[in-house]
C-alpha cells in the first residue's frame, strides 16, 4: 500500500521493520510491513506461524522483548502520532487506555494468583485512579457486559475456575475496560472449542460496533475472518503479500499464496477428494529465499521470481478501477486474478 499520509486513520503502520538478534544470526521477522485500520473497522491479518503477524502486533503495542527483538525502522502512527518516537512513559499511558490487546490463551494471559475481579479492577485503579471499591463495582459491570453469568458471584473467583470461553470473555473485558479506540486480538479464538469460537468472535464484533473501535484480528483461520473482517492483509515470511477487502480476496485472490490458503480450507462439496495443501514449509527467517520468498512453494514460479523480489502491485477491483487497499506482491498477479 503506497498511500498518502493520512492523519484521520486510527492506526497507520508504515514500513515497519523488526529484527531478532539471535546467536545464530539476525532474523528479519518483519520486513517492511504497512497496514492500517480505521475507527469502527476490522482488519484481519492472516498468516502461518512465523509469518511475523504476531511480532508486528507486539511492535505496534510496544511489548516486544528487547533483546532479542528490535524495531529497526518504520512508523506506527496512532491518530497521526508516531508511537515509536514516544517516551516510554507516554507510550505506557496509551497502552490499555487507547489501545489494548487480547491474547490467544486466556488461561496463561490471566494472573493465576489474582481473582479476575482484582485484575479487572486494576485497570481502573492504574489508569483512572479509582478507589478499590468503585473499581470492583466497575469490574462486575464489565463482566456483565461480556455476558458472564452471575458476574457478582464470580467476581472473586480465580481464572482457573472459569471455562475457556469464559476466560476469553474476561480477557476481552479487560481489553475494553477503558474503552480503547483500538483492539488487537492475537488469535483470540484459537485455543477454544469451535462452538465457543463463534460466540467469542460475535461478542468481539458486537463490542467493536458498539464502541466504534478499530479491531485488528490476527489469525490463521480463514473461516473466522470471513464473517467479521472488512479488510484482510495476508502475511508471508515477514511481509505483506496481499491486501484486499474481504469479499474481493475470497472471490478473486491476487496472490498464489492466498489462493493456496483458500484452496486448503476443507469444504463439504469436496468430500471424498484429497484436500489441497500448499507444498513445502514456510521458510526459516534466518534463510529467506531470494527473490519472492514464496517461490519455492509457488505453482506459478518463473525465473524472475527467483531473482527479483516483487513489490506490492496495486490491483484493480472487478470493475477495473484501481481500488484503494487492494494490492498483491506477485509478479503475475494479473494471471492469478484471471485464473
Amino acid at each position: 500500500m503506497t498511500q498518502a499520509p493520512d492523519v484521520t486513520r486510527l492506526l497507520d503502520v508504515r514500513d515497519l521493520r523488526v529484527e531478532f538478534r539471535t546467536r545464530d544470526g539476525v532474523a528479519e521477522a518483519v520486513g517492511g510491513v504497512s497496514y492500517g485500520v480505521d475507527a469502527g473497522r476490522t482488519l484481519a491479518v492472516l498468516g502461518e506461524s512465523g509469518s511475523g503477524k504476531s511480532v508486528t502486533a507486539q511492535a505496534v503495542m510496544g511489548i516486544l522483548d528487547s533483546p532479542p527483538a528490535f524495531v529497526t525502522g518504520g512508523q506506527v502512527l496512532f491518530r497521526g502520532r508516531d508511537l515509536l518516537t514516544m517516551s516510554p512513559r507516554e507510550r505506557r499511558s496509551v497502552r490499555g487506555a487507547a489501545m489494548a490487546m487480547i491474547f490467544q490463551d486466556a488461561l496463561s494471559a490471566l494472573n493465576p494468583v489474582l481473582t479476575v475481579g482484582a485484575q479487572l479492577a486494576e485497570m481502573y485503579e492504574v489508569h483512572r485512579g479509582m478507589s478499590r471499591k468503585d473499581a470492583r463495582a466497575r469490574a462486575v459491570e464489565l463482566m456483565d457486559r461480556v455476558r458472564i453469568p452471575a458476574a457478582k458471584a464470580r467476581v472473586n473467583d480465580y481464572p482457573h475456575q472459569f471455562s475457556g470461553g469464559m476466560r476469553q470473555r474476561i480477557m476481552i473485558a479487560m481489553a475494553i475496560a477503558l474503552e480503547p479506540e483500538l483492539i488487537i486480538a492475537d488469535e483470540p479464538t484459537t485455543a477454544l472449542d469451535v462452538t465457543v469460537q463463534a460466540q467469542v468472535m460475535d461478542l468481539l464484533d458486537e463490542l467493536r460496533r458498539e464502541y466504534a473501535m478499530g479491531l485488528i484480528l490476527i489469525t490463521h483461520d480463514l473461516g473466522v475472518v470471513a464473517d467479521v473482517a472488512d479488510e484482510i492483509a495476508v502475511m508471508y515470511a515477514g511481509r505483506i503479500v496481499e491486501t484486499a477487502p474481504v469479499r474481493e480476496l475470497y472471490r478473486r485472490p491476487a496472490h498464489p499464496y492466498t489462493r493456496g490458503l483458500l484452496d486448503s480450507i476443507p469444504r463439504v462439496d469436496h468430500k471424498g477428494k484429497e484436500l489441497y495443501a500448499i507444498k513445502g514449509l514456510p521458510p526459516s527467517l534466518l534463510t529467506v529465499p531470494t527473490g519472492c520468498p514464496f517461490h519455492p512453494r509457488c505453482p506459478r514460479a518463473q525465473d524472475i521470481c527467483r531473482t527479483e523480489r516483487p513489490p506490492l502491485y496495486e490491483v484493480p477491483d472487478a470493475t477495473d478501477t484501481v481500488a484503494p487497499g487492494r494490492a498483491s506482491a506477485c509478479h503475475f498477479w494479473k494471471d492469478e486474478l484471471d485464473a
Partner: protein
Amino acid sequence: MPEPFETHLDMTEALAPAAGGGGPVAASGADTLQGGGPPRTPRRLPWRRPFRPGGGLPGSSRGLWSDAWHDLRRNPVFIVSALVILFLVTVAIWPQLIADGNPYQGDLSKAQEGPAPGHPFGYDLQGRDVYTRTVYGARASITVGICATAGAALLGSVLGGLAGFFGGWWDALLSRLADVFFGIPILLGGLVFLSVVTSGSVWPVVGFIVLLGWPQISRIARGSVVTVKQHDYVQAARALGASSGRTLLRHIAPNAVAPVIVVATIALGTYIALEATLSFLGVGLKPPTVSWGIDISSASSQIRNAPHMLLWPAGALSLTVLAFIMLGDAVRDALDPKLR
C-alpha cells in the same frame, strides 16, 4: 446481535464448566440437553466447584496459597513440625516457663554428676544444670535461625528478583557477585571472618550467615522471576499499561515467591546447625551466651565419663533442625503444584 444467538450462548457456555467442574459427571451430552435445568437463571452450584485433579473437597480450593494451606492443614508432617517449632519458639522467648533454675550458676562439687532429683539431665563440667542450659540454649539457636533466614531471604530475593527482572548488565553483575560469595567455603569463611570478632552475641553470627546465605536465595529468586516473566500474563499486564514496578510487585512477585519460601524454610534448619558448628569451633557464639554449640563443644572432651552432657544439647539441636527441615519439606510439597 440477533436474539437466537444469545440463547445459544447461554446454553452451551453455562453447561461447559459444569462438565469440567466437580459436579455430577454422569450426565451425558444428550441428557444435559434434554433434561438440563433452566439455563438462563444462573445455577450457582456446578460451576462454583473448581476442578481439582488431586482430589480434596470440591468447592474449597482457591488459588495457590489457599490450596497450599488446605494441603498443609491435613499434612501430619506439617502439624507435628509446626507444633515442635511453636514449642521451641515459646521456650526461646520465655525459658522460665519450663526451667526455673539459673543457667549460669554452677556447683563445682557436683561437676559431671548424672541425673539427680530436680536435675533430670544431670550437671555439666562446672556443675551447672544441663536441663536449664538446654532450655536456655534454644533462644540463641532460634534467634540465629530466624534472623539469618529472614535477612538472607530478604536480601537474596530483592537482589535476585531485580537481576531476573531487569536482566542485562545488572543481572551479570549481581550473578557474578553471588558467585563470589557462593565460592567462599562456609566453615573456612567462618573461621576467618568470625575469629576477628570479639563480641559473643548472636548478631555477628547472623550477619555472617546472611552474607554467605543470600546467594543461594538470590539464585532461586532470579530463576523464578525469569520463568514467571515469560508468562503471558506479564506481557498482558504490560499491554494493558502496567508500569515496571507494578508488574514486578503485583504480577511477578506473588507468582515467583513460592520457591524462595521453600528454600528459605529448609535453609532455616541448616542455619541453626551452622550456628552450632561455628560455636563448637569457638568462633560463633561465645560464653557467657548459652548455646547448644558451646555446650556440645565443652562436653565433647568428656564424652566417655559424662555422655549426658553431650546427649541433651545435641538431641535438642537435632530435634530443632529436623523440625525446621520437615516444615520446609511440607511447605515445598504444598507449594509445588506438580506434586499435587
